[in-house]
């Protein structure tokens, strides 16, 4: 059983929902990332999605674009991001880490080399935004052979046939993108999400985590009610941007944001 599967099974056993924060590695500075990851865990994170910065993040809105630019200004490379995970693992061997990013930096390293380095660093899952299962036939076996979970996206536009096919290629969980748009944009329609997630649950046994549009305890609670977990990204990254000048204040601000979401999710537990 992978670390991701273990955590999600255990939560389910307790009737609890997963809280999955996203931050971009290297933002605001590479030296702060490991510390921020621990902060997220202390504030209630069950899994961390760690963004690998890319020069052309086509699926992201301005907030995460700017986070990528900040990280890249400090030269944050995929190799360095893996180093951060390795350092994080020295004091936390429980919290699963999912690397989230775009294909090109992984290809530039070499897929096999990347898969080896990811396992060595203690990464648990890989989510490549611009890699649909149709194009993953070379890389997927590399992940499977190393017990790395391949996490794919489902969207409001995904047809039933594709939901089934994508789920077959996925392990750990599937990531449901709650609305049509880039990260940090739009307003989530909870009823629509509830209907679609219920439908996805009919088509796959995998846990369904929902991202895009979750920004506070209320949205976390509303979406947590109908899914297995919530992914929180842009609102955290925006908090990083606004508090980048003061590292201690930044940690407090992230914690203050995440805590109420944790409590709201846990109050759903039956």
């Amino acid at each position, binding site marked *: 059983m992978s670390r991701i599967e273990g955590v999600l099974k255990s939560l389910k056993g307790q009737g609890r929902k997963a809280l999955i924060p996203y931050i971009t590695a290297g933002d605001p500075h590479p030296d702060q990332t490991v510390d921020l990851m621990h902060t997220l865990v202390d504030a209630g994170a069950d899994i961390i999605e760690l963004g690998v910065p890319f020069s*052309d993040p*086509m699926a992201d809105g301005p907030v995460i674009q700017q986070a990528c*630019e900040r990280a890249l200004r400090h030269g944050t490379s995929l190799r360095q991001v893996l180093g951060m995970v390795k350092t994080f693992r020295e004091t936390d061997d429980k919290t699963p880490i999912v690397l989230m990013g775009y294909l090109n*930096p*992984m290809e*530039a390293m070499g897929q096999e080399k990347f898969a080896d380095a990811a396992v060595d660093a203690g990464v648990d899952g890989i989510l490549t935004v611009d890699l649909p299962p*149709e194009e993953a036939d070379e890389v997927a076996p590399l992940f499977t052979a190393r017990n790395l979970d391949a996490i794919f996206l489902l969207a409001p*536009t995904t047809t039933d046939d594709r939901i089934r096919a994508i789920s077959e290629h996925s392990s750990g969980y599937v990531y449901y993108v709650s609305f049509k748009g880039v990260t940090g944009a739009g307003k989530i329609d909870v009823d629509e999400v509830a209907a679609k997630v219920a439908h996805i649950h009919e088509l796959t046994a995998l846990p369904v985590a929902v991202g895009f549009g979750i920004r506070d305890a209320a949205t976390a609670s509303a979406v947590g009610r109908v899914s297995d977990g919530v992914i929180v990204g842009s609102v955290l990254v925006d908090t990083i941007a606004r508090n980048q000048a003061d590292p201690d204040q930044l940690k407090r601000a992230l914690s203050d944001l995440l805590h109420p979401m944790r409590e709201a999710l846990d109050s759903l537990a039956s």
Partner: protein
Amino acid sequence: MKLTEEMLKALPDARGHFGAYGGRFVSETLFDSLLTLEREYKRLKDDPEFQAEFDRDLAHYVGRPSPLYFAERLTRETGGAQIWLKREDLNHTGAHKVNNTIGQALLARFLGKKRVIAETGAGQHGVATATVCARLGLECHVFMGEEDIKRQSPNVYRMKLLGAVVHSVSSGTRTLKDAMNDAMRDWVANVDDTFYIIGTVAGPHPYPLLVRDFQSVIGRETRAQCLDRTGKLPDALVACVGGGSNAIGMFYPFLTDESVELYGVEAGGLGIESGQHAAPLSAGRPGVLHGNRTYLMEDENGQIAGTHSVSAGLDYPGVGPEHSWLKDIGRAHYVSVTDDEALDGFRKLTRVEGIMPALETAHAVAYAIKLAATMDKDKIVVINISGRGDKDMQTIAEIDGIEV
């Protein structure tokens, strides 16, 4: 490798691959739209009504066929092969881009989409898109890098006059690649009612296929005109390559004609060795950007590199996947000329033939002159004059230190 019609028909394959290149590397939200577009295009491609309307528009709205002109004086001054010019600059809107926007706008109408988006570098594709949208009554949004808006201001104003909304893109390098990022972001958010008219043979499948098909009219005409006028096929074709739509349109109908050498000319900027260029086929390596696997300019960590070219339309770090394939199998040669050489080419054609090419096109002109000089007088070189240079007056004047 000797290419046959059968081999060409099999490409791209069902997943949109040209050998190792192409594909559909997009986020999930867009996937179903791409499948629908592919399905509908395959149906309409063989639909006589669709084809008749496309051909009619090319004839009566664009003004096709464009002439194949013998550049007698340039040939004499060069002192080598005969130089012929395929005059895409004489098309309505002044460039080859309109061939493709006519085709894609028809697709948009058949698919019932009311809103159109496009990215543009030099502004030629933006103008061509705004033009067809005005004619068909479609809402038009054009994404253009802040940097390009500055250097191609006449085209920005043209688009606005045509009723398009021009969105200034200030992220990343503020050029064509970032305009394409923002167009993709808009498309994800408005996928239900929006048709994305991509201007070049790059992007996710089926775009490289359908843009190539719409642009192939250039090569088909050239082939027939050359046979008609000279009794034989050309010996060499020369076209500039940014994303590569005018080049593929020119090359494609000649791919199985082994005797015809194909030259794609990339932007060498300040020189390949300077690193300040936009020549992924000459100096890049394969990677994934904007929905397809292709040659890219990137750093050792897989971050897309900044590019430089005097011409906004070539200032792009990637290239169409079919060109990557043609490079690898050795069917086409990819070369580069510098900013300075391109400017010389611009001046030469302007002064010797009275034809002012776009700065993009001037790259092809510069290389073709060098090439023709090495060839016998009975040989034929055809340059694709992909666009006219009016839009570049300001850039040229600035280089000359003149205020216009």
